[in-house]
């Protein structure tokens, strides 16, 4: 029977996004959160499910957001979420602290999302809508509230048209280009981190981002 372990409260923000700051306060906070993560990881490796669930809580919202945006479907995002964290639980014994847990879990998630994108490559892609769990099609733009007084319907229409164009342009990227662009533009990660997650170099991630933005800019140029 494993000994009782203390579960530490981590201090990482809800999005799980870690931007490296120059301030010493942020660096100390990051170091502390890494120490806290280490305790939780070791406990989880010993079979402590509560510790693993604490780890999950730190990253799962960001993971789900990524999966939802990439798959465009709540059921598919749910599948990615479940498979990613179950895989992480099964293989956490293999985690050797050679990278951060954040990078490790995102590596699993991005691989699953890449699988999903590859499978969908021949099918018609996003139309700027998301399928919710009841099977209803929900326009992504409906989720963006327009708080401005007297919102302009014509501008809204143009925004929707642009949103459709963007969705179509994203489908023309290769799975890897889409993934790099998603992680850089929407998730705000550093290219070095993206390279680690996709098991490639920072230079390759840079080139992939360059290709992705070129393709997107060409596709959206007629709108400007």
């Amino acid at each position, binding site marked *: 029977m494993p000994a009782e372990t203390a579960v530490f409260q981590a201090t990482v923000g809800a999005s799980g996004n870690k931007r490296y700051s120059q301030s010493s306060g942020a660096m100390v906070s990051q170091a502390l959160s890494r120490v806290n993560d280490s305790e939780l990881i070791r406990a989880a490796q010993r079979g402590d499910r509560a510790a693993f669930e604490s780890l999950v809580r730190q990253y799962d919202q960001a993971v789900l957001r990524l999966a939802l945006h990439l798959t465009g479907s709540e059921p598919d995002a749910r599948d990615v979420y479940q498979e990613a964290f179950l895989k992480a*639980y099964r293989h956490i014994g293999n985690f050797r602290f050679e990278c951060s847990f954040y990078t490790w879990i995102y590596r699993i998630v991005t691989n699953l999302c890449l*699988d999903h994108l590859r499978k969908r490559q021949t099918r018609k892609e996003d139309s700027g809508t998301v399928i919710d769990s009841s099977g209803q099609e929900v326009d992504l*733009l409906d989720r963006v509230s327009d708080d401005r007084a007297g919102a302009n319907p014509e501008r809204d229409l143009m925004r929707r048209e642009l949103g459709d164009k963007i969705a179509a342009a994203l489908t023309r990227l290769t799975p890897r280009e889409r993934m790099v662009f998603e992680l850089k533009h929407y998730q705000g990660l550093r290219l070095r981190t993206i390279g680690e997650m996709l098991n490639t170099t920072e230079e390759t991630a840079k080139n992939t981002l*360059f290709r992705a933005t070129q393709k997107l800019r060409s596709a959206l140029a007629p709108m400007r």
Partner: protein
Amino acid sequence: MKCEWTKENVVLYMYDELPDDARFEFMHHIQHCEDCKRELEAAQGFKQDMSAMPAPEVAPNFLASNRMQLQEALEHAQQNRSFWGMFIFDFAAWMQQIKLAPALTAVLLIVGFAGGSLTTWRLAQGTESPVAVNTGTIGTPQDYNIAAINSIATDPDSNHVTIKYDTLRPQTAEGSATDPRIQELLLLAARNNRNSDVRLDSIDLLKGKAQDNEVRDALISALRYDRNPGVRLKALDGLKSYVKNDVHVRDAVLEALLHDTNPGVRSEAISLLDPVKADSSVREALEVLAQHDSNEYIKAQSQKYLASTAHLD
């Protein structure tokens, strides 16, 4: 030349990825070059346009339902332990346990010391006669296979000893292969029997019933842990129809390809991965094998699979 460099790095500048010295050079050039300035404005316009389709925020209910579903799934999930992981002693984890349970350690030491002292004292008394056991009631080994001695109790006022023990009684079960009782015994035989022929026979019978989750788990366990390569090959045979749809089977087959010591098992495993060669975890493994594997067949087959799916990158 400067303009070319600037236009190549406008994306990196836009996403704040340029090193400080390159960033300085970039900004310095932009101030003096209208063409590059227009290029930067166009790129920034593109970035602004992309905000027309933001990433949707996760609804709290959706997040909560996913967490609950994961919690339920974790109750049935098992952590993988590598073959060497079963034998490698995790010193750090052991130290952690000792650090956090000093009281338990102290209690164990005290109990052990006290028990040893008491035993020594009683022997030193020398007043107790050896315990007499009535051997007249123990039959021949064939009639009475003793499995375990559970307890020994002595009456301090007499020479009477009470020993409680379990016996093994050989039995035979007969029935159809679909009989749940027979299946239960087959599952037991697949996992626990010292005789590899018995394990082989049980896996042979079980492999036709891999649609049952418990049977499939037993086949996966045999593939991962059985010492006999024949048993592992038999288990692979039973799992082949599930590689595409069951991620646990796929993981087990991938592990066999990467770590099995028997070349026959590895060859069979790689042939089963053909339907899932586009899967990213499979491709990752194939990339390593294609470059470094010492088995020429495995290396060539990995290269062949990768070549046929190169369009996915």
